[in-house]
């Protein structure tokens, strides 16, 4: 277990330096979209909030934190006294997991493809696809969060945004339900791409692709943003039989992700509980969130597929 105060300080320090909770090069957020040559401004903007792109880095950081958490110093396993700061921010070398980087790129490209196929043209703000600051909010760093939120809002407005299309539950929640409380005059409409696809009546018939899949509702979609039926509708029209785990919809169970930076060990225990529950129903687990994806994937056994919904809807065989 790591000293939460130290973890918070680390996140604060990195945010001020890099605009991310840990050192990440700016281009890592938007390089996936370069070959797509999407318009850079417009009323409908695809805003990823960088969460998908950060997951290969998060996985790398968590791996390092895990080593610190697991090591034994002075007979206790708690790393509560200055170890993180003595390591120094610079010592936390963050190399993204390369296999994850390519999965993330495929997911994001699939989302753009799905939107196009249902007739929704989006602009993409490239350099202005900034991190949403969701972790700052989650850690209660309200002042820092507010300042960051104002910056993100201005950048999106400068690109002509009226409606922003989000791709993950954390960014959807923060942009739709939290930003309005922190940013004066906030007037962006926010929709998850799953809502847009489902409400637009899009059908992605995948013919032989179908199969039995178990759905893992992310907490924020299910309990805070009422995105529950949309993914089910999309999956079933695409020919999948959607199975429900014991705890689903409004009472879905967390993947453990939010505390992986503080205690990778307990986060993993939570993920394992959830994984077991899901795989009782099917060997194909559908996730709707990059954090859920990473955490469930990390504890999944080889005979179980954890697949992002965008890939399934795009016709990637699980």
């Amino acid at each position: 277990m790591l000293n939460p105060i130290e973890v918070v300080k680390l996140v604060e320090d990195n945010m001020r330096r890099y605009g991310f909770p840990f050192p990440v090069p700016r281009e890592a957020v938007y390089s996936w979209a370069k070959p797509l040559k999407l318009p850079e401004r417009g009323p409908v903007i695809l805003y990823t909030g960088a969460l998908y792109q950060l997951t290969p880095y998060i996985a790398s950081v968590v791996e390092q934190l895990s080593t610190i958490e697991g090591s034994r110093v002075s007979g206790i396993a708690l790393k509560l006294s200055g170890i993180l700061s003595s390591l120094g921010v610079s010592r936390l070398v963050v190399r993204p997991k390369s296999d994850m980087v390519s999965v993330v790129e495929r997911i994001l490209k699939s989302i753009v493809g799905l939107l196009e196929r249902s007739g929704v043209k989006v602009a993409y703000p490239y350099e202005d696809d900034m991190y949403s600051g969701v972790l700052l909010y989650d850690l209660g760093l309200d002042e820092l969060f507010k300042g960051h939120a104002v910056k993100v809002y201005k950048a999106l407005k400068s690109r002509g945004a009226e409606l922003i299309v989000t791709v993950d539950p954390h960014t959807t929640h923060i942009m739709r339900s939290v930003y309005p409380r922190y940013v004066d005059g906030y007037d962006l409409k926010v929709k998850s791409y799953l809502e847009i696809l489902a409400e637009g009546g899009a059908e992605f018939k995948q013919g032989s692709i179908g199969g039995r899949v178990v759905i893992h509702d992310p907490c924020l979609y299910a309990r805070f943003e009422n995105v529950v039926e949309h993914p089910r509708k999309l999956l079933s029209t695409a020919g999948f039989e959607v199975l429900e785990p014991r705890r689903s919809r409004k009472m879905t169970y967390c993947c453990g992700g939010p505390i992986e930076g503080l205690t990778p060990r307990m986060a993993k225990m939570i993920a394992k509980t959830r994984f077991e529950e899901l795989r009782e129903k099917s060997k194909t687990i559908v996730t709707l969130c990059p954090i859920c994806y990473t955490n469930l994937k990390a504890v999944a056994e080889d005979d179980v597929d954890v697949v992002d919904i965008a890939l399934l809807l795009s016709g990637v065989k699980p």
Partner: protein
Amino acid sequence: MTFNSLQAYQEIWDALSDSEFQEALRRASTTSQVKVEELLAERRDLLELCREVVEAKKRSVDLLGELVERAYRSLEAVKAKPYYAEEAEEARRIIGSIVGSGKLVVMAKSMAAMEVGLRGYLESLGNEVWETDLGELLVQLEGSRPMHTITPAAHMTRLKAVKLISEKLGVKLKSDSVEEAVKAVREFLRGKIVKADVGVSGANALAADTGAIVLVENESNIRLVTSTPPIHIALVPIDKIVPTLLDAVKVAMVQAAYAGLYPPTYINIIAGPSSTADIERVRVYGAQGPRELHVVLLDNGRMKASKDTLLKEQLRCIRCGRCQYECPVWVHTANKWGGPAYGGPMGLIWTAITVDPIETGKLAYLCLGCGRCDASCPVEIPLSTILRHLKSVASRSS
């Protein structure tokens, strides 16, 4: 009372390696979740009852100062003796002066007693003190603290419990059957209860209109503790005061349902000490039940919280422990994720109100923000929102 978040983190870390602890919690929480889910699916009327309790509790929190005064007068009217304790220490002192020393004291499970450190204090005055709720007794014998609000020994396996009973109570058990252990405890505690000088209880609710205390239970130990000894002391946190007796009974019913114990075996209503006027209509106190009823109203940060826009929401809490059993973190930590008395989602907030918001905030970082607690709370407390707020309190302080 103080506590240190780093020490709590150390305890949590150790608990993660304790396979017996983990297994007991996994079983207890799964059983409880399924049971309550089935009950609520079958009894939709309970959801209506919840809504009524939410409304009654909201009114109560808004009128807290006034309700305290009304309850005070109603208690006097039924010949109970009311006291107001602003802090934990004051509550201990008041109760200590009623009990004195060299007495035999029996306690019905009370988290408020845990909050003020009552058992240890009464023992330090030279009294013999016994918990009579089985789970609470196990915790007493283990020398630990309650790991869940309703089921204090949720972290113990059957084998552990049976071992504690046979070793610490010095009773010879022929097997490790739960039935035999319960029977042994029953005999042991009956011996204490009939001889006890003082019975101490908490309360699920206190009705301001009548001064009636409502207590819900299944073991019948509360009945015995509040009616057998000549003196009954009830320690009642002021957030438990509701406008009417009907409101108070509704609180007890909802609490039982969300704890998975429905219908509750017993609901006790106690309005004043026992009395009789059967001879020439002369009222004499102390018939078969207690001749004295002392009611200590405990503030300990609650009045202040009632004026805070966010913390006031917590004062609706009816201590059903639902949020604990539903929380993915609590299932691995039990109340070790908490302060000296309370743990888990609602318990952290109670710790912030009654002990220390900053140290609690440091513990709140473990909250996933997943909102299962919010979704399962019968009185609609925005627990995860308050926990996030506590994180910001801790972040600002460092």
